[in-house]
Each structure stands twice: as C-alpha cells, then as structure tokens.
C-alpha cells in the first residue's frame, strides 16, 4: 500500500473506516413495532448510518454504528432500544443489507 506525499487521499476512506469497531457497551435494536417512519433516528445519527423508507423498515448499519444511543433517545414512539453489545451481528439484520461484506461479518 502506498503512502502519498502529504497523505493526500482519494475519496471513499470513510467506507473503509469501519467505526462500528468503536462500539463497546450497547447497540441499537429497532423493534419494528410502533415505528411511524418519522425519520428522526436517521436525522439524529452522528454517523449517518441509519437507513429506512416506510414504517418498520429502519435499521442501523452496525459496521459504522458507534452505539451512542441518540436514535433510541430521540425516537418519539420508543421503537428503538439500546441492548447489550454482542460479539456478532444479528442474522435478521442482515436481511436489509445488500453488501456481501456485511454478510460475512455475521456468525451463523
């Protein structure tokens, strides 16, 4: 791998910097029961890693989520709860992700 002078770099480094590894204590769990698709969780996420379109479709991309809990704090219908951090990514979460790399992070 080449280090350019001045460390000048191409765009896209954010994609490679998987800040999900920073998460230690807890992770968000989207219950998908009372979600109204108000979009507040997605807007308040400092990483911009919450995606969704329509009721009960929102998910946090755990490869980037730092576990700050803003989404759970801000959800007006308490559809997001912070649960203890686990070592693996939950299988059902992977349904929403198209990225093959994400799939490889899940344990069976």
């Amino acid at each position, binding site marked *: 791998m080449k280090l350019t002078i001045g*460390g*000048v770099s191409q765009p896209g480094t954010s994609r490679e910097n998987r800040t999900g590894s920073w998460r230690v204590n807890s992770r968000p769990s989207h219950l998908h029961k009372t979600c109204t698709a108000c979009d507040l969780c997605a807007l308040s996420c400092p990483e911009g890693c919450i995606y969704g379109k329509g009721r009960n479709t929102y998910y946090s991309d755990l490869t980037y989520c730092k576990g700050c809990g803003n989404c759970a704090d801000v959800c007006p219908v308490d559809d997001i709860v912070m649960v203890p951090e686990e070592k693996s990514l939950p299988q059902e979460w992977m349904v929403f992700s198209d990225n093959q790399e994400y799939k490889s992070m899940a344990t069976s």
Partner: protein
Amino acid sequence: MTKKLLEGSQGIAEAVALCRPQVIAAYPITPQTHIPQELADMVANGKLKAEWVNVESEHSAASVVLGASATGVRVFTASSSQGILLMNEVLFNIAGMRLPVVLVCVNRAISAPLNIWNDQQDSISQRDTGVIQLYAEDNQEAADLVYQAYRIAEDHRVQLPVMVCLDGYVLSHAWETVDIPSQAQVDSFLPPFKPLYKLDPENPLSFGMYMEPDKYLETRYMIQHTMEQSIGIIQDVAHDFEKIFGRPATAIIEEYQTHDATTILVGMGSMVSLFKEEVDQLRSQGQKVGVLKLVCYRPFPKEELYQSLKRAKHVVVIEKATSLGFGGPVASELRSVFYGCPHQPAISGFIAGLGGRDITAETVKTALNKAHRHPVDTEYLDLRTDLELEGISNPAGQHKK
C-alpha cells in the same frame, strides 16, 4: 533587466509580482507591511493579476494561502515576528500537506518585551516546521531568492513550503540598487505551476487527512528525507539561476576566503556583509580569517558545512537568535555536525544583535578575541555594563578590561 533604486521590500514585491502568484493574503505588521502594501497597489492598479484576500490575522493569511495552494495555484504571503508565530501551526499544516507555499519573513524580534527591530528569532523559531529556510545577505539576494524559492518549492521532488528571510529594517527598509529581471527572463526560469495533487471537484482528493499512529511516523520521515534530497535541488536551481540571470546565486553556503583560513566566522543574513569587511581588514594585517555565510538554514547542510569548516582551527558563530534555556541554535546545530568526526575545530557560539542591537566591527573583534583565548560555549556580546539587571549580581559575558 533593469537596475532600480528600491527599498528592500519593494524589491521583494517586484520579484513576487514577476513570479505571477494568483492568490495573495497578508496582514500588516512592522517591518514587513511594505511588501503586501506594494503588492496590493499592484493588484489594485492592474499591474499584477492576482486575487488579493484581506484577512483578519496572520493565522488567516497563512490559512488562505494554504487553501489556495491546495487548489493548485501559486500563492504568496509575508510576515514578521508575532505574525510568523501566529502562522506557526499553519506552517506545520502547509509543510505536512506538502504544499509549495512561498513566504517572506522580514526578521524581527519577538515579544515580550515588544520590540520591532531586527533579529532572527522569528524565523529560527519555526525551524521544526518542515519549511525550507533561506537567508539573504542583501536586497539583491533577497529578491533573487524569491524566484528560486518558487522553483524549489514547486519541484515535484520537493513539494515543501519555502521561507525567504531578510533582516527587518536593515534590509527591508534599506535602499539598494536591485537588478529587476524582465518578465520573459523570469518566465524562462520559472515555468507555470503544475501541482502534483490539487483540490478538484472533477477528481476529488482530500488533503490534511486524519492519520493514526500506524502511518504518521512515516510522513515525518518522508519530509526529512525530502529535505535532505532538496539540498542538491537547491544547488541545481541556483546554477540555473546563474545561467539565466547572469549573476551568482549562493544556494546553500558561501565561502568567503575560507580556503586557507584558520579562523572562520559563521553567520546568516546581513551581518555577513560586516564579517566580510572585517575579514578583508584582518587579511590585510596577515591574519588567516574567512567567513562562512549560511544561506540555507533548513535543511541544515551538514555535509557542506563540515567540508567547508573542517580544516579551520577556530569556528566563530555569531547569531541573532537564542534558544532560551540552552544556547545559540546555529552554534549548537553546527557542533552536532562535527560530533564523532575526525576534524574538530573549536566552535565558539555568540549571541548578539537581539532586538535590533547593532552588531558592529567591535562586536566581531570581541568575538574573535574571546574565541581565540579559549573556546566559548555560549556568550552574549555587547551586554551593557551600565545597567543593573535585577536579580543578577554578576552577569556572564561581562568582562572587566
């Protein structure tokens, strides 16, 4: 090529204008204000086609030229003393991002106490930044170093900022006959700027990235390596300058009557003119003395200095700066060059001329006499004997004759 009677700062401004910078940002401070003032006049009356950015401080001036340089245009700024210090963190950024910014430092003492007169503490305090530093002896050299500075900075093997230093008031406000080349001559010496990397929405890049411990060390190593390599490039640029402009360019060091000298004076900037006069006088009295003028302070030209000074018995450094709590920067760095080497001249270090105190022929004679008696580690020259210094009963460097 025209010879013009100019104030030093005007000579600098003329040289800068001929280099065709596209963005200039500067903030006033004595004694450099005349430089941006002249350039602002030139931009206002259409003589120089550049974007002039008014800023609220030197920190902003440096930041503006950093940003503009990153977009791939030639830039310029200038400052002195507190202004240079205010630019400090940005100078590190410019060097770290490897941007070929050229700036002029009109050397002035640093507060506190507040002093507007000449010494070299301001630029020397920036010696760790990764900025190449060149010191001019007179106003012709100061202007000539500007053209060379852009060539050096923009060389793809360098890509580092260059600071041209000239002594405040002594040079900046002195009127000398300066040879100002034609635009065609400068254009043949300095081609248009071709950036290695630049900010461009069509091909997006990021400068000044966040970098973790796993790579930062290497970036510093790269700058050190580049600075060492740049000594050869600076010399090549000087040779090219001589070919195109037809007058000598000093590049790294100038040896004045050092070939058989047993004692060699070392200095930077305008004081060297005085040293040369003293040497002429002493030579006429049969003394084998010479002067080593240090032009390129960063990178510190270890090999060139060693080869030039190794046969001398006494090396006498007089400098207009000090590292408080230690001693003279040039003397101490020079001593490190000789560490472990077969040749060991006695290297004496003197601090003089701080805050604009005149360095005179007497100063030089005193330094030589003291150094010849026995090697001096660090001594302040010309300390007044008529002042009581509170808290000090017997100041060092004060000798009763």
